């Protein structure tokens, strides 16, 4: 089991008014699984992903990543978790615009403590592995959406995480590019055995490629369907 979420609750406060975003969410993800989360906007998908990614802290409940309780981690330990355990991909790519593809990835490697001399070669390797060897010195604005997302994936993979958290990675892309990105993620999952937790709107794709699809409705899990149960 790479990830175990148990009775997770997260509320935001507007003044004294409590706005629950997640209500008693529990789920398990095994090593090497590809899990999709679907649900309407405001259903708490991103909140769940941010909590698992260690960007946010839960109101109650636990998140165990390989038996380590993320919800009990200090801010410093959370930074380590984000650095080495998980890699995050976003709908809007979130590349630093002033830096080239290589520099964006080098920054992640720098945080990962990779010595300066090895950084360039490692960054180049990881860029080539997503098929963008010819775009190494391009800045994000000079890349197409699909290319930018590939660089973002390369950055997520830079420090060899066990799990990739993808928040609607195809949300800003056309259908052809989308399927290329989905293929890339699937390849990572199948060839490298990286566990993937992906948020998507596309129910059809989710069902096709995932081992498990989780539907969130108003902060709660409505149903969890395994691939085996699909007809």
């Amino acid at each position: 089991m790479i990830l175990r979420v148990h009775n997770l609750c997260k509320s935001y406060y507007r003044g004294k008014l409590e706005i629950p975003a997640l209500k008693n969410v529990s789920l398990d993800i095994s090593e090497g699984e590809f899990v999709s989360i679907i649900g309407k906007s405001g259903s708490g998908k991103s909140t769940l992903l941010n909590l698992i990614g260690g960007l946010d802290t839960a109101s109650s409940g636990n998140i165990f990543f390989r038996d380590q309780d993320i919800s009990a981690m200090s801010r410093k330990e959370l930074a380590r978790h984000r650095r080495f355990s998980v890699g995050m991909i976003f709908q809007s790519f979130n590349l630093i615009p002033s830096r080239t593809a290589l520099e964006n990835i080098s920054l992640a490697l720098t945080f990962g403590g990779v010595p300066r001399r090895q950084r360039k070669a490692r960054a180049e390797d990881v860029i080539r592995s997503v098929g963008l060897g010819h775009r190494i010195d391009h800045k994000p604005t000079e890349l197409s959406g699909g290319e930018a997302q590939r660089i973002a994936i390369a950055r997520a993979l830079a420090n060899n995480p066990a799990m990739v958290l993808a928040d609607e990675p195809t949300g800003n892309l056309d259908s052809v590019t989308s399927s290329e990105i989905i293929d890339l993620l699937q390849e990572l999952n199948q060839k490298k055995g990286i566990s993937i937790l992906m948020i998507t709107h596309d129910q059809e794709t989710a069902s096709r490629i995932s081992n498990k699809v989780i539907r969130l409705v108003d902060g709660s899990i409505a149903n969890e369907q395994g691939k085996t149960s699909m007809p």
Partner: protein
Amino acid sequence: MNISDMILLAIANLFRTKLRTTLTLLGVVIGIGALSSMVSLGTGMQKNLTDAFLENDLFTSYRVTTKNIDLEQISGGNFENMEGFLDKPQTPLTDSIIKIISNIEGVQYAFADIQFPVQLSLEGYDIKLNAQGLPATSGQYKPYTNLLAGTFFQTDNEKSVVVKWETFRKMGLVPLDKDNLVVFSREDSLKGFKVVDPDSLLGKELVIKSKTLNPLSLAISTMGGKVPDEKTAFREVETRLHICGILKKSGSFAGQQFRGGIYIPMETADDIPKLGFSSIWDLFDEEEVDSYGSVYVRAKDIQDMEIIRKDIEALGLHTFSIADQLEEIKKTFLIIDSLFGAIGSVALIIAALGIINTMLMSILERTREIGIMKAIGGSEREIKFIFFVEAGFIGFIGAIFGLGLGWLVTRLANIILNARFPEEGIPVDLFYFPWWLLAGATAFSIFISLAAGLYPAIRAARIDPVKALRHD
């Protein structure tokens, strides 16, 4: 991420916003420029004064005089140590007393301070000044070691003379000194000043005219009931001495204010008939004791000064040393430096506000980037450090350029001030940048900048990544 990575990242960030960094930097540069030039003026004044003291050997010397009644003390109603003062005979400064002083442990040498007004003539140039008698041993010590040409006299009775550079200058002859090139003013040129080779002056005959009382004529006129007129009451004597050495121009502006303009071997000086400053007292002296007005005592080491003072005062004599005033002078300069420093610091504090402003702007602009850095594993500590280094780097670079600016400004001010107030035609350095000022200003600039960066850095580190990633 190690420290060098964070530093490089911080510097790269500064380079990305060149204009803003430059403007912020400029604030610090001006602040440090103002601070350092102000303080360097204070230290420059202090250095000029202490250098003058050092150059004239004033820290290791005493002037010994017969015990005086301290009028100030008495007027204050303080009669301490005064008991029986008037009844006791005063210790006169005679040759035998000088011998006793010379034998005090720690005393290098002591000699009577013979100073008398003379008129000098050298190849038609005339000048009036004070002549000073010195023992030949003085030639081993400052300021008499600093010769432009020739040597100090070797014996106490030779017929030679050491002349100060400034004395020639007053005569209109300027001995060429490669280390101290003279800038002639228009006025100087009109007066017919000319540059001469110092070696050509050596061996030349200097005619010294001194005046003394003519006791015979005085006696005759008094007996005749007539008031003696100047011509008959005084006798003019000519002494011919050969120039054996020329002392260099004293580097400090206060230098030439000490002691006479020419130096004559002790015994030769003693033999010259003269009217000393205290000679008028000689007229009233019934006992014909040959005593001097003051005695100069030089200590072997500055540490011996206190013991020597006690020993001399035990003889019933009074000592005076400029070193006694040094602590007071130092205190005064500390106040001046602090005042100047405080004025300069105001500029630096304004610059610090500029740094805070720039950093906060930068954080606002880079919110999303900070969110990304956190998402890919940047810790609060690292982000805080990066911003901290950015501020510190502005302080460091600002200090370097600021010191450069301060130096330029003081050079310029020095040139202007020297042109406005020419002093013997040789530029005086009014400003001084000691190493502690360079190091202190740099450290202060970095400290102020880091302090200015503290709040922005903490704020950057505390940014919520979830909100930051949504930030446009």
